[in-house]
């Protein structure tokens, strides 16, 4: 019974979204949209085409690399700035400022730095993701209850024990929330990076399809990206909730 109830929300939401989509399709017609059934059929066909796979692989590689960089960099920066008050006071405002800059404005510079290949996309994706991860980690470290650190001192922990056995586990639920948001932004950054000055990847295909007014292709790629993002986000959200339940 309880599993049934847990699934009721998501199922209702999916049914609701599909109905709204179908209704919108009936209103606008073939010029701008495809029906859900058509889109799913076309997406399926897309995966059968061998020419499709290099693009998917390109996006997947760029996204994976970007997320690894964003998490590593974000956590290291966040732990450092959270731990050292002086460093935090100096660099945190810079991070916040950088966060509010529309990152697209930095893309020309990244392209000049990294060239027209996959590296620029990775850098652009990581740039989107690492800032929220760093900011969440800073807060997570600062919010660790002082009593836990004090307890560590009663247990005669040295500094590395304090970091690895208390600080990181205590901050992990918050850090993970940052990673969840960072992941979504990294995906935006990666696909966005592919839409300009790129020869491969789903973002490039999408841009191309827009130019050719290939509504089937636009709908299919968008659909695939949305499904991927929704699945990954749901998994991370489930882990996130599990971690937070213990606090």
């Amino acid at each position, binding site marked *: 019974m309880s599993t049934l109830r847990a699934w009721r929300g998501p199922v209702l939401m999916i049914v609701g979204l599909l109905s709204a989509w179908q209704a919108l399709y009936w209103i606008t017609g073939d010029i701008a949209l495809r029906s859900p059934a058509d889109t799913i059929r076309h997406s399926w066909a897309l995966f059968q085409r061998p020419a499709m796979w290099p693009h998917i692989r390109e996006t997947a590689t760029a996204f994976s690399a970007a997320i690894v960089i964003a998490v590593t960099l974000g956590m290291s920066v966040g732990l450092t700035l959270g731990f050292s008050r002086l460093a935090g006071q100096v660099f945190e405002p810079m991070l916040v400022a950088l966060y509010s800059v529309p990152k697209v404005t930095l893309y020309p510079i990244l392209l000049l730095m990294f060239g027209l290949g996959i590296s620029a996309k990775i850098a652009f994706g990581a740039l989107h993701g690492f800032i929220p991860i760093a900011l969440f980690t800073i807060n997570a470290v600062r919010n660790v209850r002082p009593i836990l650190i004090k307890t560590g001192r009663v247990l005669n922990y040295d500094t590395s024990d304090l970091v690895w056995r208390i600080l990181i*586990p205590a901050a992990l639920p918050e850090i993970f929330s940052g990673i969840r948001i960072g992941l979504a932004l990294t995906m935006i950054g990666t696909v966005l990076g592919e839409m300009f000055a790129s020869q491969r990847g789903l973002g490039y295909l999408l841009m191309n399809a827009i130019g050719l007014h290939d509504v089937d292709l636009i709908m299919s790629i968008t659909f695939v990206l949305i499904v991927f993002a929704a699945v990954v986000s749901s998994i991370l959200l489930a882990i996130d909730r599990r971690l937070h339940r213990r606090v």
Partner: protein
Amino acid sequence: MTNVHVSLKNVTKQFQREGSGGVVHALGPLDLELRSGEFFAVVGPSGCGKSSLLEVIAGLSPPTQGEVLFEGKSIGGRVPDGIGVVFQEDASFPWLTVADNIVLGLRKIPISNEERQARVDRAIAMMGLKEFTNAYPAQLSGGMRQRVCIARTLVMAPRLILLDEPFGALDQQTRLLMGEEVLKLWRQTGATIFLITHALDEAAMLADRIGVMSARPGRLMDVIETGWPRERDSRVVESPAFGEITARLWKSLRAESIKAIGKADAAS
């Protein structure tokens, strides 16, 4: 049982006030001797430096002046083996199960795995946590979590247990019962207990001797012997002596508490 377990000689504690560069004189000068195996409670107005006193004895923060001896040895910058501390705040680690929390209490004491397990089992049994060994702290009540923290202290077989208002966050009934548990555990372990509390009745019910502290800077104004038998429980509150002790405590504390409140008003 009358040999000296802990002795403080002419101890003072001062803090650098953050930002302004001023100095807060929190504690002392203060002399105190704890006898081996006794139950010593400290009461005092809020902000009188009770917790500073505990941190100095624990070795968590060094005294500005004076010396603290534990079992004849000077306490340096770390918590000596043999001293366990339980705080008021919930100090259980939320990411570990009850059993894993308790194992941490063994610090890095080099003992065999069997001995380790035996000690953990004993502490779990003693604190009535058997059904909860695999639970996470979030699944437990505040009183139960405090038991976890006490068990974590017990596994290292401490000879001196420092309690910093350990029941301050609990409701009155739970507090009375936890008080009885602490008495039982005190008798079973034979450890010296140093309890800080703001509850006069708690001090009067639990302790052999009660130290009364002045408003800041905290000094010992009075030490009261309760004269309770070692075998006692919360029912001592019914005896006439209990009323006399709390009355005497309040008599010495009333003026100091007014002073402390006045200071707080002036500061705000």
